[in-house]
C-alpha cells in the first residue's frame, strides 16, 4: 500500500492538470475567434459584426473562423480569406485604399471645412459690427459744469 500511495497521489494531480490544460487551450481559441469575428461584418444584418449577430450566416461564419483557428491559421490569414470572398464589404474597418480613404478622412475634412467656415463667419460678424464713434466731443461750457457739480453735491 505504501508503494501505491505515491502513484495514487500522482494520478490525483495528473487528471486535473490535463483538464486545466484543455480549458486554457479552449479559452485561447475562444478569445481568438472573438477577436477575429469582431473585425468581420455580418453581411446580412449589415451594421453588426459576426460576433454580435444572431443571424444564421454570422453563426456559420463564426464556425468557419473557429475551424481555421483550430487548424492553426493566423488571424491575418483568416481575415484575408474572408476578404477574398466578400471584398471590402466584410471588413468592419474598411481597408485604407482608394475610395475608402473618403470614409477615413471624410469626418476630419468636414471638421476642417466647418472650422474654416465658422472662422470666416465670425470674422464677418466682427467686421460688420459698427465701430464706436471716434469724433471728439465739444468741451463742457462753464454753466453746465457748475450745474453738474451742484447736482453731484450730497
Amino acid at each position: 500500500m505504501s508503494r501505491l500511495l505515491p502513484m495514487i497521489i500522482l494520478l490525483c494531480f495528473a487528471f486535473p492538470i490535463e483538464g486545466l490544460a484543455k480549458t486554457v487551450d479552449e479559452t485561447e481559441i475562444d478569445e481568438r475567434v472573438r477577436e477575429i469575428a469582431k473585425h468581420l461584418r455580418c453581411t446580412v444584418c449589415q451594421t453588426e459584426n459576426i460576433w454580435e449577430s444572431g443571424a444564421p450566416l454570422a453563426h456559420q461564419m463564426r464556425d468557419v473562423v473557429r475551424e481555421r483557428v483550430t487548424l492553426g491559421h493566423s488571424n491575418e490569414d483568416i481575415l484575408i480569406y474572408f476578404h477574398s470572398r466578400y471584398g471590402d464589404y466584410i471588413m468592419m474597418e474598411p481597408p485604407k485604399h482608394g475610395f475608402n480613404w473618403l470614409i477615413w478622412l471624410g469626418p476630419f475634412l468636414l471638421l476642417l471645412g466647418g472650422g474654416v467656415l465658422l472662422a470666416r463667419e465670425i470674422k464677418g460678424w466682427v467686421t460688420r459690427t459698427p465701430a464706436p464713434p471716434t469724433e471728439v466731443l465739444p468741451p463742457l461750457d462753464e454753466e453746465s459744469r457748475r450745474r453738474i457739480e451742484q447736482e453731484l453735491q450730497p
Partner: protein
Amino acid sequence: MTRTTQITILVVLLALLSLFYQGLWGDPRHIPPVLVGTQAPIFQGPDVESGEPLSSEQFKGKVILVNFWASWCQECKVEHEDLLRLHEEFKDHPEFVMLGINYQDEVPKARAYLKQYGSSFPHMRDVKGALAIDFGVYGVPETFVIDQQGVIRHKWIGPIVGDVYTNLTKNILTPLLKGTEPTT
C-alpha cells in the same frame, strides 16, 4: 456666406450622407462581386435527394451553372420554373452542367420542395454553410457561372427571370459554350 457657397456645402453634405447610407444600409446585391474572374473553389457535399457524394471535380472542364437556393426562400420559388427551362435549353450540350446548392435548409423540406416544384438536375447540400461562404454568398438565390477552366465568369444575386434570364443565356452561357468571350 454667399448663396453659391451655401448650396455647394449642402450638396457636398447630401452626397456624403448618401454615400454613408449606401455603405451602411445599402443592398449588398449592388456591391461589386470580388470572386468574378477568380478560380472557383472546389466544393463537395451530399446529393439532396440520394445522399450520394457530389464534387465539383466530377464536372471539371465543363461550364457549370451553380445556383444557391433554399426551400424557405420566396425568390427561389419565383425563379424555379425558369431554372428548369434553362436546364432544358442547355442540358444536351456536352459541356454544360447545372448544379443546385441547397443552403441553410433541412433535408426533408428541401426534398419536399424539389418534389413539389420539380427537379431535373442534381442538388448538393451545403451542410455547414461553408460552401456558401467559399462562394461569398450573401443570401439566396445567387447564381454563378464557372467556365471550362474553372474560373467564375458571372455572378447574379436574385432570381433568374425576365431580362436576367435572357442576359444569362444569350450573353454568358451561349458564348462560353461556343468557346467565345461572354458579354455582360
